Every structure is written in structure tokens, then in C-alpha cells.
């Protein structure tokens, strides 16, 4: 009787293990769920009577220099823009138009590649060079790099002053 009782006791375990094996054998997951969206965030400011104030731009147009794709096409009431830096080059230039006035932003940066996983591939983040980055001065007066690490965290990297 002991043998029968013993089998009775291990029987539910056998059922459970078999079901688990069959279930696990049919499941797989190949998708990347990591955030790989890296953009430089820039806010607009002006200085009046030695006081820094945020500025809302009536209309703004931005595209990458040498790139046909327009990032902001006469977008209204803009206080902040998110700009993608080049992942495979260390210099990124953007053409910025305010009504009919053009400026060119030149950002010098180093790119840091880090391997995430087989599904996600590599993430590229950037470190801005505050000394070598510059701008033309038609509408824009100056730029200031506030946080030089451009990553998946949305923080204010660049201040653009008018």
C-alpha cells in the first residue's frame, strides 16, 4: 500500500511539472523594451534688465544641416525643442529659422556606444563639448550648455538666448 500512497502523493507534482514544461516550451520573447530615444533638449531664454526669462517663440523652423527632413516646420508657441545629435559623427549642425532670420547651431560632441542586449542592440549617448560648440549670431545671441550628458533622460541640455 505504501507504494500506491507514495504515487498518490507525487502524482499532482508530476502533473504540475509536465504542464509547466509544455507551457515554458511554447513561450518566447524577442522584443526590445528599452528606451533608446536620445535627444538634446534646448530651451529658449532672453535677458532683460539682467533678469533671465523663458521665451515663447511665435514660430520656429529647424532642420539638420545637410538633411532634407524638417524637425520643426513653423511650429507655433514653442518654448523648448528636442534635437537628435548624430550618432556616428562628432559634429551636428542645425539650421534654425525665426520668421526670415536664419541661424546655424554647431554642436561638438563625443558619442558613447553601449551594448544593451541582443534584441535592443546599442544605445548611443552624447557628451557635449561646451568649449567648442558655437552658434551664428543673427537672431541667437549665445548658447550655454547646462548639462553636457545627452541621454535617454529628458533634461535641459542647452539654453539658447535671444
Amino acid at each position, binding site marked *: 500500500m505504501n507504494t*500506491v500512497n507514495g504515487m498518490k502523493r507525487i502524482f499532482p507534482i508530476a502533473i504540475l511539472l509536465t504542464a509547466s*514544461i509544455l507551457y515554458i516550451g511554447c513561450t518566447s520573447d524577442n522584443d526590445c523594451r528599452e528606451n533608446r530615444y536620445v535627444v538634446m533638449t534646448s530651451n529658449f531664454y532672453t535677458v532683460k534688465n539682467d533678469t533671465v526669462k523663458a521665451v515663447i517663440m511665435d514660430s520656429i523652423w529647424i532642420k539638420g544641416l545637410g538633411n532634407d527632413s524638417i524637425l520643426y516646420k513653423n511650429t507655433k508657441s514653442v518654448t523648448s525643442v528636442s534635437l537628435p545629435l548624430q550618432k556616428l559623427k562628432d559634429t551636428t549642425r542645425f539650421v534654425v529659422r525665426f520668421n526670415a532670420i536664419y541661424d546655424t547651431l554647431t554642436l561638438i560632441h563625443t558619442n558613447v556606444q553601449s551594448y544593451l542586449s541582443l534584441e535592443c*542592440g546599442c544605445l548611443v549617448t552624447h557628451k557635449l563639448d561646451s568649449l567648442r560648440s558655437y552658434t551664428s549670431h543673427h537672431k541667437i545671441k549665445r548658447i550655454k550648455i547646462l548639462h553636457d550628458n545627452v541621454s535617454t533622460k529628458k533634461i535641459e541640455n542647452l539654453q539658447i538666448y535671444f
Partner: protein
Amino acid sequence: MIMSAPRKLKIYKYIFSLLALMLFSQTAICQHTKHKKAPVKKEVKKKAAPKKEEPQPLLRSVTLQADVAAPLLASSGIKTAEASVDVNLRNKWFPVWEFGYASVDHSANEGAQFTTHGIFNRIGVNVNMLKAGDNKSLVQYIFYVGLRLGFSSFNYDINNITLTDPYWKTSQITDIQNIKASARWGEIVAGIRLNVFKNVSVGWSGRLKVGLSTGKGDYSPWYVPGYGIKDGSGWGFTYTVGYTIPIKK
């Protein structure tokens, strides 16, 4: 209807065999062959003449097992083979050494390809949670829990890692080859083993793998031999067929 003990025993064995066959075919139910085995009479005799139990001999048997489910459960590009040796101490403690080999050639959705091959070892002990039985015969079935320490040494390649810059319309493909790696981890195991015919047994085990360490480096393996997919569920299962060599004194 009241069934006799030998008949119940046969029915249970029949069901266990069906579960085993399900693992092979996943759908088919095949015919069962009868097993001749009736240790019940001995147990009845023993009850009739109870004696003061002598302590169990230390070394009872050695069992060799092969995991026959691993090749069947392998998903695309993963090939594994695994075997184990355990020693039966007093029908209670079962020190075990598991060893195997894995070879992987897997492509991710975005085109990156991971290949590896390597050996693995796990050492640990199982504890029989059921009554150890008398001191003359080997246990015919065990339900055990156990612990393992796993070790693996392997090389891997990651090819065709594509880095795309959609706005600036540039891309780069990187191949990383012959990365040497080693890994260690722990496992909590529960399972059963049942003697089905003479010294032949079948067994199931489920295990939770924890604390994987693959060391520091710029890259990490998608699959670790003996552990499985690095970012997977952490669960592992085995279905084994074994042969027990009794040790007589």
C-alpha cells in the same frame, strides 16, 4: 468500486508513463506497456512482523540520468545535452553532479546574431522529502527538494549589431567575436523520481535559477550554457531517464 493495491499501482504507473510520452510528442498519447513490479507484498510482510529499525546503510546506490526533454524543448537555434550522476546516501540524501553542453545560434528580430558553445556543470544535493523506507531495499520513488551551484565557461560572438540613426540616415554594423565568458548561478530544485522497471527510472524536476553572474564587460551573453536565456524567466525543467546501480554490502 474498490480496487486492489497492485491494480492501483499499475494505474499510477500508466499515468506517469503517459505524462512522459506527452513530453515527447506534446500531443500524442501512446500505448503503454505493462510493468511487472509488486513490492507491496514485501511491505505487507514487514507490517505483520514489525522490528526495531536498523539505521540505513550510508551508500545505497549510484544513478546515472540523461535529460531527454532538453533536445525536444530546445527553441530555434538552441541545442543542449545534459546528464547527471547522483549518489543515494541513506535513501535520504542525494549529492548530485549535473553536466552538459550547449550550442546556440540565435538571431534577434533586429538582425543581430548570437552564437555560443560551451560546457556547464552544476553541483548540489537533493533531499528526499518522503519516508526513506526500510534499510534493506532502495526507495522506489522520491519527491525531493535541492540546491545547485552552476558554473559555465564559454566563448560567444555577437554579429550584425546594427546601429541606425534614422534622422541623419546613417548606419553602422558591428561584429564582436570570440568573447570569453564565465558564469555562475544558484538553483532551487524540486522534483520527483520514480523507478518504473527494474533499475530504470524516470524523473521530472522544476528549478528556479537565481543570482546569475557573468562578470563585468562591455558586452553580455544572450544565452548562458546551463542557465538558459540570460533575461528569460529563470525557470528550467528537466525530464530524465535514469539507470540505478545498487551498491550491496
